[in-house]
């Protein structure tokens, strides 16, 4: 059953067409990778789904809701969570408070005015899951880059979204951190629907099953990783180009 359906989605900024008649369907339980060269429109697509950018035309339907005109927080409340390329966590709050805040959006307003002495169980469990338990009471500002990304994933899990959008979760990470993130991703994918934007080919080879390639705002092709890698069009616009770049 399809969870997210994007039909004929076009986004223009002035004369520039960032997304050009995109059609895309994400099924419940899927782990989908979104790749494409710089400027292909990957982040714009996620921005449009989450309400940061509004579609010029076309429709986005999620779980029976049309998202087009809704604002960011309303879309988040329908069950879509996202992370950002440069991780944004609340530095002045503790790690646990970051996660708690992400979980608390479902609470009625007067509950927000209470001051809990201890953190709820689900916060502790999520911190354990992403391996941040030792940092529970540390300010988020003290975390390393990799730990911040995990904290963002923890916040995402606490939000309990039905669809997770991850924008370059392993960018700037060390090899160990990548491996750890990969494990985490596989774990989460078992019971979540996830869309991942990722550039890292090694990471793709390890974890990607279904891949959608974007190029200049259009869906170039879609399929499993081997098919996509062997597609001459893809090699030309994407893999070929990075290949050349690697050699210059």
């Amino acid at each position, binding site marked *: 059953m399809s969870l997210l359906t994007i039909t004929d989605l076009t986004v223009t900024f002035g004369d520039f067409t960032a997304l050009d008649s995109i059609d895309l369907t994400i099924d419940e339980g899927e782990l989908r990778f979104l790749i494409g060269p710089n400027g292909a429109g990957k982040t714009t697509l996620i921005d449009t789904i989450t*309400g940061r950018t509004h579609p010029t035309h076309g429709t986005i339907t999620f779980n029976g809701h049309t998202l087009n005109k809704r604002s960011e927080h309303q879309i988040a409340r329908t069950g879509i969570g996202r992370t950002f390329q440069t991780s944004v966590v609340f530095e002045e709050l503790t790690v646990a408070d970051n996660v708690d805040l992400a979980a608390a959006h479902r609470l009625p307003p007067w509950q927000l005015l209470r001051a809990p002495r201890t953190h709820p169980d689900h916060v502790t469990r999520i911190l354990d899951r992403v391996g941040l338990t030792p940092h529970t009471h540390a300010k988020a500002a003290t975390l390393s880059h990799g730990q911040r990304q995990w904290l963002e994933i923890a916040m995402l899990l606490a939000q309990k979204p039905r669809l997770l959008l991850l924008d370059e979760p392993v960018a700037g990470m060390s090899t160990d951190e990548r491996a750890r993130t990969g494990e985490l991703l596989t774990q989460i994918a078992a019971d979540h629907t996830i869309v991942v934007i990722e550039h890292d080919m090694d990471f793709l080879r390890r974890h990607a099953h279904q891949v959608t390639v974007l190029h200049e705002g259009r869906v170039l092709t879609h399929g499993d990783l081997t098919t996509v890698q062997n597609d001459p069009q893809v090699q030309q616009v994407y893999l070929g180009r990075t290949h050349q770049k690697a050699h210059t």
Partner: protein
Amino acid sequence: MTTTLTRLRGPLTFTALIAAALLVLPHLLEPFRLNLLAQYLCYAIVALGIALAWGRGGMLTLGHGVYFGLGGYAMAIHLTLARTAADPLSADRLPQFMVWSGRTELPWFWTALTHPAAAIAAAVLVPGTVATLLGWSVFRQRVRGAYFAILNQALAAAFVILLIGQQHLTGGSNGLTDFPVFAGHSLYTPTAQTTLYTLTVLTLAALYLLFRHITRSRYGKLLIAIRDGEDRVRYLGYNPTWAKTLAYALSAMAAGIAGALFVPILGIISPTLVGVIPSIMMVLAVALGGRYSLTGAATGAVLVNAAQTTFAETFAGGWTYLQGALFVLVIALAPQGLAGLTHHAKNALTRGRTPTPAPEPTTAGSPT
């Protein structure tokens, strides 16, 4: 080893301070000084609100004089009516300035404030409503930072122009003064002044506890999150508009309450007390004391106003320069204000675990 003691230290210090402020200071200080202290404590109440809106919510409000003024004028209008009601010479309860400007009956918003309870309610609700309307419409449009500060500043300027322009309704640049009675009690006795002082201390204490609870709640954390990453908060499913509006309205209501207390204490309200300069002074005091700490902000307000009086008494012109220099120093060397300095000093002394900043409440400063 001393967890119970450390947990009790805050409440104990707080209670001791309140006790000292209520039981000791009225006997120690001559009535004139006690009256001054009561004024400073009114500014401390405003400071608590600014610390909530600015320190926590990131809303730099350069127009809190307006809310202070709305509360103050609500009370001043009521007190003027209380005077004219007791005055056999005043026809139709009209104050003199209205008679001189040719008015023959009281404007509706004067009559509405005839009852003391109405005046108190208005002092809280009018600032609250104005701030809610302004905040909601502005935050919804995602106006923030310097633009919001300038908007507030403009509001303060417009408020003063309105007060002066509508002389027949507000007393113009002279403002309103001479308040002999409130709810049948004379305000010109030493007991009345002590009572007002006590009332101010209790209000400050109550608002401190309320705001302290708010800053420690999830909502308080949400405010910090909004301050540091408003856009990120939206993707967590929160609408920052209502959260910011609430904090802004609460801080406006605190300023309104402070204004209402201030008027019978000082005995006058006029546009010079509520305009652009006083608004900036209120923020300045919070910056000096430490905007991230409620105690710091309140202490800052007391100290700055006390220093102002002291310096104005000894060398009048020097204060402005000293104040400017102090402000520059604090911004350059201690952006977290006095509260930040004491917090660092405490950490340096203990070198142990460093929990979240919770400096002990040192609300009452010595007014020389």
